[in-house]
């Protein structure tokens, strides 16, 4: 079942358009920086972007930081929110279920497919950003956020962990979208539900008044991967981010499963 779902996702032009758009934004930014030579002042603007002009090795991390707050979660919400609700609105869901494909099995196949999409998207953006960064700005040993230089092989594993961290961060959003996807037969409504969670979390995270709930917000630790480029690595928030996403994923998927396996399919 997973193989079929994966095939459906990979064969859809939409999948590749979304990934192309995600990778396109950092490319656009890189070209602009290169042409104008005007970067954000150090300590301002999106993470790492100030350093990128001098060193392309940081561009994968910079590219992920660019798409992380809004662009990437929207893309993930669209794919995950559509997964069940889309089949439901087309009517194909009922024919899948009477094949029969067990509801739990279908949900797991959809989840795995969305997970593959997330990792694929993040990985492709990182690779494209590396190539663009290397060709436009050149690769040097990383200066690191704390100033000390980071060796090239050191940069590689930090970037790999970053890719994994960003992808896992997106799985929380994906789980939320999947949950809403089991509630409605309108894919747009499911996507909106996930975005509502996202925006709420980000707004609360900005409010001083919401301080008490900050450590529990879905998006709170998203940018903690910046700490991976400190010397030495500051693991505390990264580990918390992983754990928090794990809890969100478990809760949201549990709710999605409970709803999907007990609901009437009337479309």
């Amino acid at each position, binding site marked *: 079942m997973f193989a079929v779902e994966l095939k*459906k996702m990979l064969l859809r032009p939409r999948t590749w358009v979304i990934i192309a758009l995600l990778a396109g934004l950092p490319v656009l930014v890189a070209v602009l920086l290169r042409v104008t030579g005007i970067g954000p002042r150090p300590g301002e603007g999106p993470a790492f972007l100030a350093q990128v002009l001098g060193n392309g090795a940081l561009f994968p991390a910079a590219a992920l930081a660019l798409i992380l707050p809004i662009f990437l979660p929207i893309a993930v919400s669209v794919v995950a929110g559509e997964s069940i609700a889309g089949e439901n609105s087309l009517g194909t869901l009922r024919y899948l279920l009477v094949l029969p494909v067990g509801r739990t099995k279908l949900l797991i196949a959809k989840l795995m497919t969305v997970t593959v999409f997330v990792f694929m998207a993040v990985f492709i953006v990182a690779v494209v950003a590396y190539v663009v960064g290397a060709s436009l700005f050149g690769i040097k040993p990383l200066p690191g956020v704390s100033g000390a230089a980071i060796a090239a092989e050191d940069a590689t594993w930090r970037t790999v962990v970053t890719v994994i961290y960003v992808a896992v961060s997106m799985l929380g959003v994906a789980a939320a979208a999947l949950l809403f996807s089991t509630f409605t037969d309108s894919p747009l409504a499911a996507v909106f539900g996930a975005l509502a969670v996202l925006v709420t979390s980000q707004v609360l995270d900005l409010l001083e008044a919401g301080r008490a709930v900050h450590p529990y917000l879905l998006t709170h630790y998203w940018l903690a991967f910046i700490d991976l480029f400190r010397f030495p690595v500051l693991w505390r928030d990264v580990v918390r981010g992983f754990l928090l996403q794990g809890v969100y994923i478990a809760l949201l998927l549990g709710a999605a499963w409970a709803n999907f396996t007990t609901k*009437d399919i009337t479309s």
Partner: protein
Amino acid sequence: MTSVVSTRALTKRYGSVAAVDGVDLDIQEGDLFALLGPNGSGKSTTFRMLLGLVYATSGEIQLLGHSMPSAASRTLPHVGSLIEGPAFYPHHSGRANLTLLDASSGNGRRTRRARVREALERVRLDAGRLPYRAYSTGMKQRLGLAAALLRPRRLLILDEPTNGLDPSGTREMRDLLLQLQRSGTTILVSSHLLTEIELICTRAAILSEGRLVAQSKVQDLLSTSQSVIVVTHDIADAINAVGSIPGVSVLEQTPDGLVLDLNGAEASEVNASLVSAGVGVREFSLKRERLEDVFLRLTGA
């Protein structure tokens, strides 16, 4: 005879409204069984409960001898279905859609192409690479049926299979259903084309507002008819004469006679009474009821 579908007090409530209310269906192996009823009478909800898509509020369902929906993984591979119209991925061709469905159901990979080709031939659909969204209504319906026939089935549950088909398509569908029934497939079908049903179905049940109002052989449904047609010039005399026969009443007056409700009286005696009262009876015949008449009478539509 083994029971293929059997429900006991099957009920589905949405809030205080009962969409299906205490239905006891009994479909035997080899039946070509029609589930009839006006729109909104609960046919589709019943089908969906049989297939495990909608969960019953109460009651029991036995499908192929197993309890549904708990035995879905064991029974549904033997059940082909068409529920409220076909549904496929619009950007894929019919063939690609069937191939995906076949893969999802875990059928053997090596024989997949042959299976898909056979199913398409069976419903006479040859649309090449045309995407599903460009199909006509009739083609979509055929593809839906092809999906139901992707593998050998013991039971077919077909909700309005003739929907959107032209007269020749309807006829082909009728022939296909009869052919399937002869090869041993039990078929449960719903349709508003009552003439078609009357032609091919062995048994039928009628739902009205969620309740089962009839269930028997189609012939038996039709022979519950209790009216006669009297052709005569002496309509006024005939009406007088009928008034003196206990129980019998005039249902309808036509330009050349009357339609009488026998209400249990023996037809030959009624005829004799009319003749002895001096009515010139030119023709006296039992009115053969159409399934449509039974349907309209029982559903109060």
